[in-house]
């Protein structure tokens, strides 16, 4: 299965600023996914990212707030823009290879 390197692992950011999270996959994958997880809670899908096309966002998430890039089949970024304390959470990227999803190690974001 794929191995995904995600960074940063954690960050503390000032409100109003933006943070870009990067995920590098060690093999080519068609689809990548971005999730958000509050501590002790389930994973909520933010968006699905295909190479060469715009990301598809779930209800409650918009491109202006969470712009996503997918420049090739092994890399994706998620930006959390104009952050507020409500954006404090764990963000995970994921890739699917036909036999289950592999996750990055997550980014723990704290907005102060």
């Amino acid at each position, binding site marked *: *299965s794929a191995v995904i390197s995600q960074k940063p692992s954690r960050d503390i950011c000032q409100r109003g600023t933006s943070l870009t999270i990067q995920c590098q996959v060690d093999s080519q994958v068609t*689809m990548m*996914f971005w999730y958000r997880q509050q501590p002790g*809670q*389930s*994973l*909520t*899908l933010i968006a*699905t990212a295909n190479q060469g096309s715009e990301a598809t966002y779930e209800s409650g998430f918009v491109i202006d707030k969470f712009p996503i890039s997918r420049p090739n089949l092994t890399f994706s970024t998620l930006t959390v823009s104009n952050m507020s304390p409500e954006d404090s959470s764990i963000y*995970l990227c994921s890739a*699917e290879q036909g*036999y*289950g*999803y*592999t*996750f*990055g*190690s*997550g980014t723990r974001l704290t907005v102060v």
Partner: protein
Amino acid sequence: QQPVQSPQAVILREGEDAVINCSSSKALYSVHWYRQKHGEAPVFLMILLKGGEQKGHDKISASFNEKKQQSSLYLTASQLSYSGTYFCGTDRRGNDMRFGAGTRLTVKP
């Protein structure tokens, strides 16, 4: 739509068995099971694609009743290493995984 998992939490002694259930109100393409330990990313356990299919992995197995849109995860002779939160994930179109709320499993010596 998020699948419904039950129970929310289970506490076991080593060697005991547990069943975790997952159901959906929508027709399913597949059901996945994941385990997440505290502070770590979820780890894939197994995927079920066909109705009635049962898959196994060591002492952990799962079934998928496509008609009832339900899946169950069976953990037998539990070990301390089984502790964690188990999530089922349901996929209606092959590209939109939704996860249940999770079942926190604690195995005690």
